């Protein structure tokens, strides 16, 4: 049985080894901090290997040479104060020697002063919200959600290279600039983790924490939420696109243009069909995880919307629920969505899965924002 399993293992290894790259060490650093962490890790690993080889060299020598079957007679010594002092003091000295370079890195890692751009990162179940608070791009704000199609997860479509590590809207930052990240969360604790920058910072509801990075090359860098945050914890990647200073300026301008257009939407009146089409998309990006595609939820944790009193009752109650969330439940506020998006998703909920409760226009949502 076990032999078969082992053989199957080797076979599997051979097969899967050819299919894609195997990751087995730190990602290539893209910031000085990550490079320093890499160096520290290598330093301790060498030290460990040397000590390990010494101690277990002695053990294996003894296993080989001091066997009863070789006729070795046991000596009866059981104490030696000098030796015992030596092997207490020497490790202590080694530890102090490691502590010096490590302390330096800790101090620089904690120094978030002098940032060029400050971004607030908010963890939601299960997506990230980015608000550019200071520096170029100030005022930009958007959500970042997993972009891997459900079909890939369920195995009905082939998995792409960035499977589970791709999002609809990446955090975009300029290369070489000090980016300060403020973290917080809306519901439970999340953790914003970007291995290539050597950054991991918990996002704690009700509190702000900070960290920083300075990317030293352009490219797209990927990580994942690193603190268990409920059922979709494995499905909320953190993706950062580092671009040149010019591209960043261009991106900011484009973003502002788009938002202006969204503001225009607020005053428009849409047809039911338009709202339904857009609403389905907004729902798929923001609500399915809990309320499910069929609107039935997974009670008791997540209630159904099909036939729900709120979703078939007065519009105001429905708008308020989505806009402000329900305190102390997983139903969080969705204020970050635009009025048009909210109107669309609310309309979609009121007119799907057997619900028939009429449409909601952006102006109505705007009116209820406090």
């Amino acid at each position, binding site marked *: 049985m*076990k032999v078969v*399993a082992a053989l*199957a*293992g080797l076979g*599997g*290894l051979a097969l*899967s080894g050819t*299919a*894609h790259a*195997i*990751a087995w060490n*730190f990602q290539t650093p893209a910031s000085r901090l*990550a490079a320093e*962490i890499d160096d520290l890790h290598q330093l*301790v690993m060498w030290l*460990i290997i040397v000590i390990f080889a010494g101690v*277990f060299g002695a*053990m294996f020598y*003894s*296993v080989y040479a*001091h*066997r*009863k*079957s070789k006729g*070795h007679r*046991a000596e009866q*010594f*059981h*104490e030696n104060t000098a030796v*015992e002092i030596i*092997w*207490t003091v020497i*490790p*202590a000295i080694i*530890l102090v020697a490691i*502590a010096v370079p490590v*302390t330096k890195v*800790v101090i620089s890692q*904690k120094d978030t002063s002098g940032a060029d751009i400050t971004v607030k990162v908010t963890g939601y179940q299960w997506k990230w919200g980015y608000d550019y608070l200071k520096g170029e791009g100030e005022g930009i704000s958007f959500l970042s959600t997993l972009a891997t199609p459900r079909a890939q*997860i369920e195995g009905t479509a082939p*998995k792409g*290279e960035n*499977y*589970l590590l791709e999002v609809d809207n990446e955090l975009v930052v300029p290369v070489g600039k000090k980016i300060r990240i403020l973290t917080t969360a809306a519901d439970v604790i999340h953790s914003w983790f970007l291995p290539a920058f*050597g*950054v991991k910072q*918990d996002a*704690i509801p*009700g*509190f702000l924490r900070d960290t920083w990075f300075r990317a030293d090359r352009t490219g797209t860098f990927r990580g*994942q939420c*690193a*603190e268990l945050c409920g*059922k*979709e*914890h*494995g*499905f909320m990647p953190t993706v950062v696109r580092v671009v040149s200073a010019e591209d960043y300026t261009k991106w900011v301008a484009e973003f502002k243009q788009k938002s202006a257009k969204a503001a225009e939407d607020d005053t428009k009146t849409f047809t039911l069909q338009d709202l339904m089409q857009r609403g389905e998309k907004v729902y798929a990006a923001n609500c399915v995880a809990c309320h499910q595609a069929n609107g039935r939820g997974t009670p008791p*944790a997540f209630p159904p919307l099909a036939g729900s009193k709120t979703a078939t009752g007065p519009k105001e109650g429905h708008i308020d629920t989505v806009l402000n969330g329900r305190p*102390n439940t997983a139903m969080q506020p969705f204020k970050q969505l635009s009025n048009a998006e909210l109107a669309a998703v609310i309309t979609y909920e009121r007119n799907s899965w057997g619900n028939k409760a009429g449409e909601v226009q952006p102006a109505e949502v705007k009116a209820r924002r406090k």
Partner: protein
Amino acid sequence: MSAVADTHGHAHDAHGHHGGYSGIMRWITTTNHKDIGTMYLWFSFVMFSIGGLMAVMIRMELFSPGLQFFNPEFFNQLTTMHGLIMVFGAIMPVFVGFANWLIPMQIGAPDMAFARLNNWSFWLLPFAASLLVLSFFMPGGAPGVGWTMYAPLTAQMGMGMDFTIFAIHILGMSSILGSINIITTILNMRAPGMTLMKMPLFCWTWLITAYLLVAVMPVLAGAVTMTLTDRHFGTTFFNAAGGGDPVLYQHIFWFFGHPEVYIIALPGFGVISQVIPAFSRKPLFGYASMVYATSAIAILSFIVWAHHMYTVGMPVTGQLFFMYATTLIAVPTGVKVFNWVTTMWKGSLTFETPMLFACGFLFMFTLGGFTGLVLALVPVDIQLQDTYYVVAHFHYVMVAGALFAAFAGIYFWLPKWTGKMYNETLGKIHFWLTMIFFNMIFFVQHFLGLAGMPRRIPDYNLMFETWNKISSLGAFGMGLAQLLFLYIVVSCIRNGKPAAQLPWEGADSLEWTHLPTPAPYHSFETPPVVK
């Protein structure tokens, strides 16, 4: 002390051995330390099997990327319950089983100090375990919050969370009662001449462990009780909206949690400190420094808790303090490893199954200790925290450390307990299979962690696939190997060859030198005199 007089009474009972009951009632009413020890050991094996089954299910899901068998909620419930059951149901009770069997015999006492309390400590466990398992059948299922049960995720769980909290209360009660019993027994019931510094190291490690348990189990009880009142009674200890702080939970939990890892490890150190000298035919090297090192580890374990929390965002002084304190623990731990290796040095070594497991322990526990040192360094830990590196690290300490020590101890004392020998060849096969599959499961997880795969996720990117496949195959093999262990133990009890009075040449504690094999139902009705 009246409880002691009581057990004595049983010996003179007309019904002889079992206090007048037979069948199932014997086990329910027993106050005999050996019966209770046996029940602890079997209970632990049952929980080990359940927890192991869950581990295999987790590894099934992680065999390939994509969601194959379970939805993510159920996956989280499996990891949570696997962790809780292994820690509280398998590893802690197995060593309490050892304590019950061995402490009275090793210090020359007739039984444990509080015999009825001892019965109660055990019989609390099945109720607690049932609550844990039943939580799966509550609306919303078992809690999917991880064995650390961080707030405020706990606030979103269904009734299963309350079952778990209640189970932890009961488990804690059982541990505290058991510990009080062990402390009292060791401090008051040693035979004449058995000074503290003559006690076998196993008794020492348990004495220290028992103090740790009494100190930290109430802290855990506090943490989960606050979770309970936050959930149901409108308090906001861990909710910022009401003036609380979710991070407070983590401080309280880890104030329990770090000593807890030594609660798991120290009794295992004790077992290894009995086994290695016996098969080296040479006294333990540095007995006194072992006692001091163990005490130092226990004391330091109270001031390092926040090394689990480097990423919550502490002030830099906090990070540095907890880093220095944590690396300090490497010193006494190093002393222990050096002492064990030196005990083997120039001995006259043989490698029966207990010694194989002891050597396996030594080798791999040290590896786990080293990765612990890596994780103690703040910047490196920030890369590795909550990744598979941590999963690999703590399984090296808890499985290759504590569990291997338990296997070593079981093979070592099985002849004393049953009067029969297990099959040595099968025992050795069990060791090698366990060793190989264990490393297959967990060694590769270091790579996954370094490459950035978070823990507690049911699905992963393709770059992690190869190591996950190897790890899963290892887990299936490891599961099968434990069936062999069950077979070895059962066939030893059923039809093992009678064991010699002293099956291990080098064993020299009282249970071997002053008591017949198998150990009689009541040992030391008159205390031995220790020179």
